[in-house]
């Protein structure tokens, strides 16, 4: 199949840039984020946090805090209004007589002002009995290690994720015969690699929530959550018997990390029950950086075999996943990580990859962009590098050869097996991106710099990852064609369109894309199409924007709903115009007869006066279409100081069809943020092992790159019209950076001539590798 032979549609809106519906509000400061919003008569919450990583709470005295003028309630494990289970599988209550990480909540205060609540925290006296702590998954599994929960003997979490896995738990890839696979291998490498610094996604907007107890076990919540639906799912599970209506606004950076915010929401809910007032809880930046969810920790011990043609023949290993102190459905991330490994190594027939999830006394790890894929990829690709180096293969050729193609089988997060039905052109997309980057000129071989100029050495690296979660979870939408009242002709059209589906905007622009595809189906201006405010109560169900699902699982239901409404409109018009439907077309909310357009009828005249035409569409999840992103990086390492600078980046894919050009460009850039690229270079969460505290408690200490540190970026996007839904597109944002960390280590290793396998490759580690420290 030749790319140039793919028929490329000529759309009115799709594929072009459309300013977002929120654009004007954002640039004028009018866009609402949670902290900008208040509920009448609200109180303010603050949290007293554990100074110990592992301790029994012997005694809490809240009397002085309660007596402080302006304090309305103080809640501890001794007086919680409800149990608030935490964990999936459930393994603890949110407030207990024991703490398992530094910074976890011990007491909650609701007061008239934040300042009064802060003052009350200091008046709460807590007596602890410290217990020994453990900070590594492998150490937590050792006999005699401090045990965090009765529910997890030996600190091992039950494998699997029941919500994702209807056929039973799945946490291993076992097929074929690895011994046979290793016999077929010409090159074998084995090692232990860690991606274990558990960095912080550090969204600019701190997790925030307002909760109002409405009585009868019902709560209304406003939150900076990336998905009202996901938050509702978790909260109703963790407070059984209760119901929640979740409202969201614009979210100031989510990266998957602010989807549920269960601890913050449950805290505010408890205080609302105790005070019978709405309660607003906004984390400080210090709390966000030191006590909020971070990336999973990963330690992988594995062995890979590769034949003389560069195809992987066997993978064997154990992936240890560190949840920190709470496991919140990490089995889902493990499932996706294992699935993504199979997309990268899709030709391998022999697998024996096991996994274990472990709890430790580190801060709770949760969902972050990449969703287990980055964590596993960062380990596995280092191992692939070792075996590619043995065979002296160009990594580009290896990735092209091994990546999942049409018909290749893989097991996905639900434990079921699928044959890939994605693009035919992923290898071509990788090559085209490589060409644009200049890979052929820059790649000099393993551990060979691209160039050396005095004390500065340059090297290149690459990585590939993909995700078959791009059709995950079910969604639905309603689209209504609404006639203007009294037949008025506002904007030239007599109808406007309302799209109803629950999509919270955290920067991907999918709310606007939903309007755009509907406008495309109706062949009308995008200005005539609006989307309902996000929230779980009144909208048709939608898991929201996570895991690259937005493109297919939101745009498919809305476009099908629009097509349904359009079909109804054509049917009525055909009857009124006495023509066959096939002879009609719709443009700008008027239906015309083809070849005699003077015979036409406005859509506003089709239904009964002032009534809508309503269409419905849905998507039911499946996992048979993988995405793919290839990333390339060039670094310059100062061999005297060990400092690494990124001098060039590239990312590319086949997306089937670009829905919005500038959105796609930004999604490719996005992989530089969200604790992706820089987790290989300098970004980390430094843990003080004497007290279990993360040491970077401010944005002065949590170092990240500034505006004058962004290198040139090349992006290359193919559009081969992949058969996913009406507009043949697939999503990509989530994984645009997931392979960047491993690519960066490859580049640094090549620059300095020594293989580095520790994340991040800080100057100290580079100098140590060079034997200079």
């Amino acid at each position, binding site marked *: 199949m030749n790319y*140039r032979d793919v028929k490329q549609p000529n759309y009115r809106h799709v594929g072009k840039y459309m300013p977002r519906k929120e654009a004007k509000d954002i640039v*004028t400061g009018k*866009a609402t984020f949670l902290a900008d919003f208040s509920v009448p008569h609200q109180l303010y919450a603050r949290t007293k946090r554990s100074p110990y990583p592992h301790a029994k709470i012997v005694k809490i005295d809240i009397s002085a805090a309660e007596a402080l003028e302006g304090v309305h309630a103080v809640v501890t494990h001794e007086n919680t209004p409800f149990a608030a289970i935490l964990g999936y599988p459930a393994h603890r209550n949110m407030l207990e007589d024991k703490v398992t990480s530094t910074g976890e909540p011990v007491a909650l205060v609701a007061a008239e002002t934040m300042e009064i609540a802060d003052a009350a925290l200091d008046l709460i006296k807590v007596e602890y009995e410290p217990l020994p702590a453990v900070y590594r998954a492998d150490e937590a599994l050792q006999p005699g290690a401090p045990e965090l929960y009765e529910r997890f003997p030996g600190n091992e979490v039950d494998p699997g994720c029941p919500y994702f896995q209807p056929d039973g738990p799945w946490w291993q890839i076992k097929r074929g015969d690895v011994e046979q696979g290793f016999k077929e291998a010409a090159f074998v490498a084995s090692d232990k690699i860690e991606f274990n610094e558990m960095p912080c996604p550090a969204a600019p907007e701190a997790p925030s929530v307002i909760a109002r107890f409405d009585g009868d076990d019902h709560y209304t919540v406003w939150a900076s959550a990336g998905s009202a639906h996901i938050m509702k799912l978790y909260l109703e599970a963790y407070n059984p018997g209760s119901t929640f209506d979740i409202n969201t606004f614009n979210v100031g950076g989510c990266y998957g990390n602010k989807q549920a915010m269960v601890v913050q929401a449950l805290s505010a809910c408890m205080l609302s029950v105790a005070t019978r007032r709405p309660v607003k809880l906004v984390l400080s930046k210090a709390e966000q950086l030191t006590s909020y969810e971070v990336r999973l920790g990963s330690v992988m011990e594995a062995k890979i075999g590769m034949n003389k043609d560069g195809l992987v023949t066997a993978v064997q290993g154990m992936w240890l996943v560190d949840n920190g102190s709470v496991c919140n459905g990490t089995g889902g991330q493990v499932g996706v990580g294992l699935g993504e490994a199979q997309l990268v190594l899709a030709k391998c027939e022999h697998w024996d990859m096991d996994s274990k999830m472990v709890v430790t006394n580190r801060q709770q790890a949760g969902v972050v962009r990449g969703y287990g894929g980055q964590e596993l990829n960062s380990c596995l690709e280092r191992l692939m590098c070792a075996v590619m180096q043995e065979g002296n293969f160009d990594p580009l050729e290896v990735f092209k050869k091994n990546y999942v193609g049409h018909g290749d089988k893989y097991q996905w997060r639900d434990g079921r097996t699928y044959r890939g039905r994605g693009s035919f052109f992923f290898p071509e997309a990788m090559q085209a991106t490589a060409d644009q980057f200049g890979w052929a000129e820059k790649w000099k071989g393993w551990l060979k710099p691209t160039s050396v100029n005095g004390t500065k050495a340059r090297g290149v690296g690459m990585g590939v990852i993909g995700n078959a979660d791009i059709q995950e979870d079910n969604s639905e939408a309603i689209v209504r064609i609404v006639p203007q009242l009294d037949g008025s002709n506002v904007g030239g059209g007599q109808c406007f369109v309302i799209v109803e589906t629950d999509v919270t905007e955290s920067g991907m622009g999918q709310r606007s894309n939903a309007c755009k595809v509907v406008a495309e189906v109706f062949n009308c201006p995008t200005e005539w199409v609006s989307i309902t405010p996000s929230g779980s109560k009144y909208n048709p169900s939608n898991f929201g924007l996570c895991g690259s699902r937005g493109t297919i699982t939101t745009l498919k239901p809305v476009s099908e709903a629009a097509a349904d409404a359009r079909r109804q409109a054509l049917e009525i018009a055909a009857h009124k115009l006495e023509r066959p439907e096939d002879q009609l077309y719709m443009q700008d909310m008027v239906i015309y007869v083809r070849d005699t357009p003077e015979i036409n009828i406005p859509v506003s005249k089709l239904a009964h006066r002032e009534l809508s035409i309503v269409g419905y569409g849905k998507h039911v999840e499946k996992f048979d279409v993988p995405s793919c992103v290839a990333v390339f990086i060039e670094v310059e390492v100062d061999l005297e100081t060990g400092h690494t600078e990124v001098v060039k980046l590239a990312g590319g894919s086949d997306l089937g069809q670009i829905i919005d050009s500038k959105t796609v460009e930004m999604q490719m850039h996005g992989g530089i943020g969200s604790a992706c690229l820089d987790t290989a270079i300098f970004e980390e969460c430094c843990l003080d092992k004497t007290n279990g505290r993360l040491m970077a408690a401010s944005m002065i200490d949590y170092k990240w790159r500034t505006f004058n540190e*962004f290198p040139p970026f090349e992006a290359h996007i193919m559009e081969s019209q992949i058969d996913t839904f009406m507009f043949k597109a697939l999503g990509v944002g989530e994984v645009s950076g997931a392979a960047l960390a491993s690519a960066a280590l490859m580049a640094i290793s090549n620059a300095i001539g020594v293989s580095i396998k520790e994340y991040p490759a800080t100057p100290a580690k580079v100098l140590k590798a060079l034997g200079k420290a």
Partner: protein
Amino acid sequence: MTKESVTLTINGIKYKFSVGDGRGDVAPAETLLETLRTKLMMTGAKESCGVGACGCCAVIADGDALAACMTLTVEMDGKNIVTVEGLEDAKMGLDPIQQAFIDEYAFQCGYCTPGIIMVAKALFNRKANPTPEEIKEALAGNYCRCISHYTVLRALNKLAGNTDAELSNFVRANDLIKDPVPVHEEVYQSPYAYGHVCRHSLD
């Protein structure tokens, strides 16, 4: 000397506040950010790092961009302050920087955007055509995690008339194809995604 009141001019309007520790007073330790957001309901400047490290709270005071979270309101007595709410003109419309941000899609989540716009505005007020390096340097105190950097710089470089400053090269493979297959309208879409057209097809 104890201040009993402070008067700030914000977006051209004078606001007088009593200084004190009573409810509704501006406390001596109150930051300009808090005054803007909680007393005046001007929520464009955002609370983020609280230590002046991220620029999300940037406003302009007497021509200079500053971090409102690190500025005491009592020290702004008599100053002329501009916030993002004050950029759009009722008659002239959006500030050119705001319009450029829309045209180039120079934001993602938008949380850091008001701060970036205000810092850029302070720069452009001082110099109509800053160089690409001057623009980057001015924004070095603004934190964006979604990554709007490339499109922000594109928008501001365009405004400044800098033509050779593009950092992001976005190539669509379709633009590289010569003589692409012509497309005609289809009433009946094929049920086969990758079916071949054969001699006997009506397609």
